[in-house]
């Protein structure tokens, strides 16, 4: 698969919430131009892992390496600066604001003291055009968009800061069949533009459709890593549910 050094690398990440061990010695590598799926059952530690990558949570132990440099992701802003953009499950959009306003939320372009609406709309065209994302109107309130279109807006916004890695938390959880397909196509386009994508999902069909590698979390531990091309659906499910002994017992990415 990819031989370049990973863009983002997690080493021995361990974190507890009180007596609950949410993550135990988890390793994860993300390379440019690949989709790594992180799957697991409820409570497997997926959300905690997302929080660590997003900079929303500093783990008890373990290191985060970005571009070969060990870093401390102590805030979401810092994570973004280091090129890790996260789209949370709730998308963090403002429903009453329109597409352009949401894309530039908190990072508006200005001309003098006034907002540069023309500039922002121009950028929005370019950005959505690159992703070939369809929205009915750039000036429609986000509340009028479908779930898939909102996901596209949230992803486009995450890409605005030119990140290296895009972390997507359950991007298809609330979507219908067509919209799921749109979002998956979008994820492939994002990968093909050279970004590393971490896709956190519970949906095996989605994962098999777009992922290059599948990493399984079970009860906070890595419980197998699969090549999405060759892995059998049953094996992944077995690793998720613990129905069989973990394959490749050293489990972790290399």
């Amino acid at each position, binding site marked *: 698969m990819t031989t370049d050094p990973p863009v983002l690398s997690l080493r021995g990440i361990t974190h507890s919430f009180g007596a609950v061990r949410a993550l135990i010695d988890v390793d994860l590598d993300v390379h440019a131009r690949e989709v790594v799926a992180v799957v697991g059952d409820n409570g497997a530690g997926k959300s905690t892992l997302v929080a660590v990558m997003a900079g929303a949570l500093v783990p008890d132990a373990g290191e985060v390496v970005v571009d070969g440099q060990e870093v401390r992701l102590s805030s*979401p*802003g810092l994570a973004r600066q280091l090129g890790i953009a996260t789209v949370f499950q*709730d*998308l*963090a*959009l*403002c*429903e*009453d*604001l*329109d597409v352009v*306003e949401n894309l530039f*939320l*908190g*990072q*508006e372009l*200005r001309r003098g*003291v*006034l*907002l540069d*609406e*023309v*500039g922002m*709309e*121009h950028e929005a*065209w*370019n950005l*959505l*055009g690159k992703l*070939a*994302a*369809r*929205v*009915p*109107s*750039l*000036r429609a*309130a986000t*509340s*009028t968009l479908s779930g898939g279109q909102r996901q596209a807006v949230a992803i486009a916004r995450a890409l605005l800061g030119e990140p290296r890695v895009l972390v997507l938390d359950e991007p298809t959880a*609330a979507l219908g069949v067509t919209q799921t397909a749109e979002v998956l196509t979008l994820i492939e386009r994002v990968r093909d533009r050279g970004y590393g994508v971490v896709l956190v999902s519970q949906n095996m069909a989605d994962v098999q459709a777009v992922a290059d590698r599948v990493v399984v979390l079970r009860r906070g531990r890595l419980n197998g890593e699969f090549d999405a091309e060759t892995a059998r659906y049953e094996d992944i499910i077995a690793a998720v549910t613990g129905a069989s002994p973990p394959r490749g017992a050293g489990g972790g990415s290399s």
Partner: protein
Amino acid sequence: MSAINQLGLTRSAPWQQGVWRDRGLGSAPVVVALVVIALVFQALNGAFLSPDNLVNLTLQSATTGILTLGVVLVLLVGQIDLSVGAVSGLAAAVVAVGFMQQGWPLIVAVLVAVALGAALGAGYGWLFTRLGVPSFVITLAGLLVAVGLQVQVLGDTGSVNLPYESWLVRFTQQTFLHPVVSYVVVGAVVVGYAASRLQERRRRELAQLPTRPAAEVLARTALLAVVVAVPVWYLNLNRGLGAMVVLFIGLVAVADVLLRRTRWGRSMRAIGSNVHSARRAGYPVRRVYMSAFAACTALAALAGVLSAGRLAAANQGTGGSDTNLTAIAAAVIGGTSLFGGRGSAWSAVLGVLVIQAISSGLTLLNADGSARYIVTGLVLALAVTVDAVSRRDRGTTAR
């Protein structure tokens, strides 16, 4: 333009993507309601649409309108201020007592009153953002405190008169724009509008964005010219445009630009729409809340100062009874949502015109205050229902 085609947008309707956003019906229902109200009252009493009555109506609208503008700001961030009436009463008392009894220069008294209002609002904002007390409780407490302070400031007499020759009273009662000046202002507004629209259109063309046809820009400018010039001409048949009215409209125009075209305004709407998203987007949420509360009470205090001028007195009744609810009702009737995130500065103008038109019409019909309360209450209920239903509908299409 290829990007545009890729996006599958219909270029036949470019104005739908314009920065002039006409979402849903916009303000059309309120304008229609205003026309209906005017026609009904005109049919019942021929004096309603007389220039004299309309001049009075605009003067009455100005103080309530400034209160309403403040309420709009607080509603936009999804909060409420129930104390605007009381704060305006307190400010009126401070101006009158400071000027007449303490011997402060009038301008100092005015500034002290407005600063006091802003400080109160900053206090609300502090309690709300730091301690998480719900705004309706804080401002209800603030209402009681302000009413109490108002009575104490006024002292034993309970009423302080301002001399007719003071500039505050002259400004609010007798100052009108000279007709020539008023037409120059109208002309400047229309030309300024057209110029900014054409400039924006050129920038959009350069950026290869969809533009409206030039003819449409001209048509809109012409419409604006009619909408502004005709009322000014009609009011000029009588006393004309009151200085206070011009101040009100000017404040609304400034607030409109701040809300639509600055980061602060964008953060106001974002916070009212979804405060968690706004916080994650990096807006200084606490400071924005504080600014909204402080701007609201500062405007309320200014309205109180002006109403003291208009009455040439401050008494215990200033800003009392239904002032609060009228201002909140006007904001909602004008189209600002009670649920935050949606609304515009101009809703203060439309809403206050509806309320004052009803009030003025009923007065002409010799109806007493009770009828005015009932009708205003019903109109408010209608406006809030429309707001709630439209919010519910958006909610169902959204999820």
